[in-house]
């Protein structure tokens, strides 16, 4: 199967053909895949070199002239390195744009921590008005990329990963989907975590919600699911920093007695290379670990 990142250039190249407002800004990474689009649209496929502050500043300047910039590189260099540009050149200028990252939390474990960005969504959470899409499958990535570019002048982050679920679901760029229903609690699986969550909760009496658009947070879906359960106990399993969406879930359930457990990538730097699966296990995100932590938190009710 191809990866989400494999879909990025073809989808955005088509959008360049379809919409004269669209421009792509690159900082070398991913440039090879835009060679043909650059030939067709030399003024709208812009490679600024290895200059990530300029990557965002350029996108902001394009937006100020009325264009729809798509800015792309690895998450660490897209969100973390030029964070002040993201905050000021886009947010404070009150212009929009689409950030599309690759490499996610640990897509290249042998590359080490320099190329890992488990904190990207938490960092964007310090800013107002960002839509955050976390697709769990290449087909969903394609859908959400189109939503992102087509979202007027909104500020949108699309987080692409080589981690993927086996099957795509019909995501709409807004709502959580109910994948399984039960009464013993609610488990929210974000993006690529769905398959592991479904395996981990096999036979448990829980509702599983699938979230690929995490900001804005679908508070209504969580409230409905939590309200239908015997107790408003919620576990959120995210492919980035553990607890990133815990505050959003707490806000959604503010008027219900509730408990929330946030699972995800640990804060402590692992300082290991190796394979993705080894990092998944080290952060307790493999199905067996998830089952222990989820059932331990939900207690007897989840066993049905």
């Amino acid at each position, binding site marked *: 199967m191809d990866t989400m990142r494999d879909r990025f250039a073809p989808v955005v190249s088509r959008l360049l053909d379809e919409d*004269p407002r669209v421009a792509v800004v690159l900082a070398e990474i991913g440039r090879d895949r835009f060679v043909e689009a650059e030939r067709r649209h030399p003024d709208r496929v812009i490679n*600024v070199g290895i200059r990530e502050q*300029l990557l965002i500043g*350029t996108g902001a*300047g394009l937006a100020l*002239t*009325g264009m729809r*910039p798509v800015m792309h590189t690895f998450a660490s260099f897209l969100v973390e390195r030029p964070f002040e540009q993201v905050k000021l050149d886009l947010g*404070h200028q009150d212009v929009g744009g689409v950030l599309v990252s690759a490499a996610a939390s640990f897509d290249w474990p042998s590359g080490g921590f320099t190329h890992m960005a488990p904190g990207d969504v938490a960092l964007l959470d310090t800013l107002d008005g960002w839509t955050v899409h976390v697709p769990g499958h290449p087909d969903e990535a394609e859908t959400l990329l189109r939503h992102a570019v087509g979202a007027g002048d909104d500020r949108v982050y699309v987080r692409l990963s080589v981690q993927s679920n086996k099957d795509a679901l019909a995501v709409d760029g807004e709502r959580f989907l109910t994948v399984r229903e039960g009464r013993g609690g609610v488990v929210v699986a974000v993006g690529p975590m769905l398959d592991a969550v479904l395996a981990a909760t096999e036979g448990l009496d829980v509702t599983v919600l699938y979230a690929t658009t995490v900001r804005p947070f679908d508070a209504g879906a969580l409230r409905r699911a939590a309200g239908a359960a015997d107790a408003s106990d919620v576990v959120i399993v995210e492919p980035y920093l553990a607890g990133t969406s815990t505050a959003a879930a707490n806000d959604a359930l503010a008027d219900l007695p509730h408990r929330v457990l946030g699972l995800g990538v640990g804060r402590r730097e692992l300082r290991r290379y190796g394979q993705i699966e080894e990092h998944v296990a080290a952060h307790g995100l493999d199905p067996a670990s998830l089952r222990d932590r989820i059932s331990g938190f939900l207690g007897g009710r989840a066993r049905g």
Partner: protein
Amino acid sequence: MTTTAARTAAASYSYEDLPALMARMTGDEKHGPAATSTLDVLWVLYDRVLRVTPDGVRDPERDRFLLSKGHGPMAYYAVLAAKGFVPVEWLPGFGSYDSPLGHHPDRVLVPGVEIASGSLGHGLPIAVGTALGLRAQGFAEPAVWTLIGDAELDEGSNHEAIAFAGPAALDRLHTVVVDNSSASHARPGGIAARFEAAGWSAATVDGRDHEALYAAFAAPHPGKPRVVVARVEPKNG
């Protein structure tokens, strides 16, 4: 006061009126030297160079002026008031809760202000994107100008923009560096040389000499972005 009335009044403002307009703003004396260092550059640009009017602040064909050096914007506000972009009556409120005029300007609050600035090193990269955006949409005429300080030039983001804009042949892009010798570590070889090495057209002039500024601003620079280094008296001199 409406902006229409402000414009009518503006007809009578000249360079000689700017000190009085600036005197209406109080509370940011810390930035005083930064404010006066830009006064002559701003006046020459708005009086003789920029093709933008209070009625045309959303015209896609307008020239863009991006004040990157957002510290000490009193001169900027005075010039915007003199040219009718903002009412003169706004000036005394400078920096107060209800005023749109802050100690760093905000494009969302002030008519004619193209970017919100204050944090150093943002204007030139955004100007690069603005020039690219205009070119991509077929607007061949609008010029993009940005004003930065010599110490602001220390920010690495500016060097990313300088290094890119020359080879990209962004000939509608213009930078004015107001050099009041405030950088702690002066650039070896001078400021203009840094730009020239990156493929820019460059000139260094007396930043108080209006004719010299105008000549440097108006000089042709085919195929290259242009920098004008405007030297003024040292910040603490």
